[in-house]
């Protein structure tokens, strides 16, 4: 018999209760169980960063955490950033204005990496920005406009 475990997870401020198999990855839980498809799945071994979410406020790979481990914990996904469509999070707004994306696949993971980064480091140098982005692969942009977007976001948020 496959083991199923009942979990209660707070995602973007809302509580969800589900029965899950232990082997279900948190990334797949968010996408398939909760329909929050903003969290993207790239490599599934922690290299690409597309699935980055906030786990109790800190950026982590949701493909390297099992959904059962999120029981009782607080998750924020990219869907939790904007107030609504007309009021984006300042980081999202900056990516829009500075054209910090092309295909957009890596963008949610990058945004979720940047939220705690800019909180801890409100006035980053370009070197610090590039270092912070090193755990998120983007194959379209060459990173230049992403770096510009982060600088703009830091300005907006100061």
């Amino acid at each position, binding site marked *: 018999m*496959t*083991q199923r*475990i009942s979990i209660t997870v707070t995602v973007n401020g809302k509580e969800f209760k589900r029965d899950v*198999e*232990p*082997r279900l*990855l948190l990334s*797949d839980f968010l996408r398939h169980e909760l329909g929050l498809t903003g969290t993207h799945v790239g490599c*599934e*071994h*922690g290299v690409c*960063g597309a699935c*980055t979410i906030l*786990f109790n406020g*800190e*950026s*982590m*790979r949701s*493909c*390297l*955490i*099992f959904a*059962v*481990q999120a029981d009782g914990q607080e998750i924020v996904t990219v869907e939790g950033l904007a107030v609504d469509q007309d009021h984006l999070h300042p980081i999202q707004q900056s990516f829009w204005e500075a054209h910090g994306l092309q295909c957009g696949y890596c963008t949610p993971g990058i945004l979720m*990496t940047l939220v705690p*980064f800019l909180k801890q480091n409100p006035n980053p140098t370009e070197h610090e920005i590039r*270092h*912070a982005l*090193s*755990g998120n692969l983007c194959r379209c942009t060459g990173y230049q406009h992403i770096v510009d977007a982060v600088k703009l976001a830091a300005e907006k948020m100061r």
Partner: protein
Amino acid sequence: MKPASFEYHVPDSIDQALELMHEHADEAKILAGGQSLVPAMNFRVVQPSMLIDLNRIKELEYVRENGECLRIGAMTRERILEFDPLIAKRSPLLQEAAPNIAHPQIRNRGTIGGSIVNADPAAELPVLMIALNARLRAGNTSGERWIEAKDFFVGMFTTALEPDEILLEIEVPFIQPRMGWSFMEVAPRAGDYALMGVAAQVTLDEVGKCTQAKLVYLNAGDGPVDAKSAAQMLVGEAIHDELIDSVANMAGDREINPFGNVHTSIEFQRHLAKVLTKKTLKQAIERAGGNQ
């Protein structure tokens, strides 16, 4: 890919975890931060039939002082090493090396104990444990024991732990006056596995003679490589550039045994080891108060 199915246990205390390991040592694997284990499970390189998750055991997450040593709980996150003021004061080598461990998102989840027990020859923490003369406390239901770091890493991804033992704590001696340190590595991109890396530690006496030296290398063999002969060349000497060159050659040509990989030839790893030995030694000597 997705992991194969497994049975999941999440104990709330060390005692419960030890009890579970006692019952299921043959089939169970410990889940610490999971930043190496889960990728391996996603690829089905490993398919444990049971996981015992230590993430609820809060009594395994701490950094504290005990006599002349730091004690760090095995489930302490790697990220803590970068920001904890006690680590900065008592073990600046640990603090300096920490940002080299993968990416911040990985260090937020990955644990110190997990990386040590994983015993990846390319990982930073096993090398640091040897460089710092750390001791590791492991337990099972029959009791606990301390294992010296130099006896802990017995081969590639292999440690001295018994199948039912869990690593509980690491102990790192405080840095001492006139002791200098340095950690450097070369990786293709920030956060990648390093092609080569070195942890160096030297102690100088009042007249600038070396009384103790340690040089430990990552990705340089089937475990952390402690270049004892190279380090011994420094002891009793007033260190100068020519001596540093000979030490670097001894370590890079004779003592390390790198395998090469898709990113680097063995020759290039030896070259990097020599360059990094010189750089880390010079920095460590400077920090120890020497004149280099």
